[in-house]
């Protein structure tokens, strides 16, 4: 992707250096072990520490919260580096779960929350998850039913009593704390709050480690909250503002998934392009077939469009523009490219592409989550229709 980088004015020398740092870390610390972690279904904690030691976990977070500074485009550059060297979707999701568990605390949380949870997480010492989705809810964030009841006690002893369940929670099996979306008020958007729940709280349990089609290196949990007592100081920001805090992160979360999408696409394309030059059938390399070359070009076109559009939306977000609708479109563009390009790559690999452990099959399985996770395409399309003024 170096040709592309030179052509892309958004990638300053600093960002190219970040990208290379991500790529180098992936080659050195990840690639040799990734298959093992995929098969184990979990990442080692040491990896978080190693990434933090290189300053990779804190990119894009403010220095006053323990971050390295930087913006969403810096995060884009870094993640491109990881994906270019064959990182898996599950690896990125699990190593960077703090990308979804911390931003609300950084933007609205107290100094106590920042010191207790944000700094140690950016230092690779703690692992945090975000729990929004519920078994009955899916992409319907405003429909949350997990309940937090405020129990008033004598000075300072007030706490929340949380009851409910969450599912599809990334890094939820390993998490030390879970930023949990709960209902503190009435129905709908207005009654949701975010509360940070330490996972050693009595009544909190991981009821299941879910077995997924892809994202194998990422532990995904089903969580139960039974009369979990959490001090009031663990409330993030103001009560009943949780939905809005979550919504503020929609752009960066969707951009991150779009990045993952075109990252899979570029990597799968690179693998397929190399394979089709080398693999011979009917006495000539696969790439000697016109349709094979055309397919590779189409894969490239899809990946490039996805990348440029995603980076454009990210740049507009950094510039302060409201791009919630555009982020939905970018995510859709990139994840559809991911699903189709990885599918094409498997097809070009033939039977070999169907074998466990061939890298293309991993990208193929990982990519399939993207049109579902972080807002299903259908839901985001409906949202974009409203935001763009197309709804009646």
């Amino acid at each position: 992707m170096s040709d592309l980088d030179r052509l892309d004015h958004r990638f300053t020398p600093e960002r190219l250096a970040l990208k290379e740092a991500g790529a180098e870390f992936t080659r050195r610390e990840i690639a040799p072990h990734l298959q093992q972690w995929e098969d184990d279904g979990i990442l080692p904690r040491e990896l978080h520490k190693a990434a933090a030691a290189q300053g990779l976990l804190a990119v894009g977070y403010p220095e006053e919260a323990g971050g390295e500074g930087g913006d969403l485009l810096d995060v884009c550059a870094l993640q491109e580096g990881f994906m270019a060297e064959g990182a898996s979707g599950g690896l990125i999701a699990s190593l960077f779960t703090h990308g979804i568990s911390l931003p609300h605390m950084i933007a609205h949380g107290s100094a106590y929350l920042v010191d207790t949870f944000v700094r140690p997480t950016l230092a690779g010492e703690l692992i945090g998850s975000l729990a929004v989705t519920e078994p009955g809810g899916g992409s319907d964030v405003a429909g949350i039913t997990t309940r937090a009841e405020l129990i008033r006690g004598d000075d300072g002893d007030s706490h929340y009593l949380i009851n409910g369940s969450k599912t599809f929670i990334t890094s939820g099996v390993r998490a030390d704390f879970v930023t949990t979306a709960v209902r503190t008020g009435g129905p709908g958007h207005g009654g949701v709050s975010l509360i940070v729940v330490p996972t050693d709280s009595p009544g909190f349990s991981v009821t299941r480690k879910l077995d997924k089609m892809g994202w194998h290196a990422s532990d995904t949990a089903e969580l139960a909250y039974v009369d979990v007592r959490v001090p009031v100081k663990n409330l993030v920001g103001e009560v009943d503002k949780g939905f809005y805090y979550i919504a503020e992160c929609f752009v960066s979360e969707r951009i991150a998934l779009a990045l993952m999408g075109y990252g899979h696409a570029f990597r799968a394309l690179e693998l397929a392009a190399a394979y089709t030059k080398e693999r011979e059938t009917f006495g000539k390399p696969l790439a000697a077939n016109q349709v094979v070359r055309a397919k590779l070009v189409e894969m490239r076109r899809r990946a490039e469009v996805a990348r440029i559009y995603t980076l454009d939306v990210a740049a507009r977000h950094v510039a302060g523009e409201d791009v919630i609708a555009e982020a939905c479109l970018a995510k859709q563009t990139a994840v559809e490219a991911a699903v189709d390009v990885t599918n094409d790559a498997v097809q070009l690999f033939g039977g070999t592409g169907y074998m466990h452990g061939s890298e293309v099959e991993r990208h193929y399985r990982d990519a399939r989550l993207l049109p579902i996770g972080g807002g299903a395409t259908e839901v985001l399309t409906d949202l974009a229709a409203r935001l763009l003024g197309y709804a009646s």
Partner: protein
Amino acid sequence: MQRTIFDADHDAFRDTVRAFLDKHVVPHHEEWEKAGIVPRELWEEAGALGLLGFMMPEEYGGGGVQDFRYNAILQEELTKIGASGVGFALHTDLVSGYLLSYANDEQKARWFPTFCTGEMITAIAMTEPGAGSDLQGMTTTAKLVTNDGDPYYLVNGSKTFISNGINADLVVVACKTDTEAGAQGISLVVLERGMEGFERGRNLDKIGLKAQDTAELFFDNVKVPVANLLGDEGKGFIYLMEKLPQERLTLCVVAAAACRSVIDQTVAYVQERKAFGKPISAFQNTRFTLAELETEARIAQVWVDRCITELNAGTLSIDDAAAGKWWTTELQKKTVDACLQLHGGYGYMSEYPIAKAYLDTRIQTIYGGTTEIMKEIVGRMMGL
């Protein structure tokens, strides 16, 4: 649209198959997926019920009915329950075809009885590590040796991606008896379990078809008696060409049945699952998506049923089978993908049948001749 190709005997057979699968397969398939293989006992139970040898002559213990509608029913019912690991089709639809057409009387007497009872599991080996859809590129050799006692073929080489490869007792192996003669140098030689130098590699780990044993086979100076040559020497490529339409039709049957099954599952799911306060089926997008899939699934079924009728009449053309193979399997992929999407996050969880169907489906446009090869065939038959 009602299917019109079946009569009462077929319906009765379907009931038998369904009862058998409910009892012997449904409760165990998940455990077989973990094990990566189906137990041999299943084959013997199926054999005892006549499910494996119905197409074989009665004198050898078969049912004496060569009617592909029965083959189709067996595959449809296996597909419906997601039993992707039960490799009966290799036996009943593929190997049976070669044996029925090309086995001589001595071979029939030797192989057919246990073929029917399920005591002998069969496979066919064409693909090699260096040659997938490109059959003429195979390098496994069978050299006729006449100066060492009774004449035999000395077989050397390897095959890969062989379905039933671990369980198989009898493997029809495509090899070159003449390395200079191109397609005319290919012959079918039957290797049997226990022959010295015939080794199996590991059970290959695939992204889907988890309960199906798929293996590499290695041949190191295997001495195969000439009595195990199937048909005539040098005719192997012609035999393969003759039988490939039947293999491809099996994949079409599976594709159409899979579309039917996942659409039915999804129709039930979207009516029950609520999002934003109403069932997902109440969203127009859901209805349009499913309406499109339903329409194409019906079209596919009509095509497949017509191909079954043609196969029975001996008129199924190579290009009709190839056209059906690529179109129905690509449709199956598209259908399973769209149905998975309608399942949302649950569709990504391995425990849901739709997640398993997605990974099982991915091989359909690759094996039995890739989509690209199918299009080459159709294009060639159009005179291009």
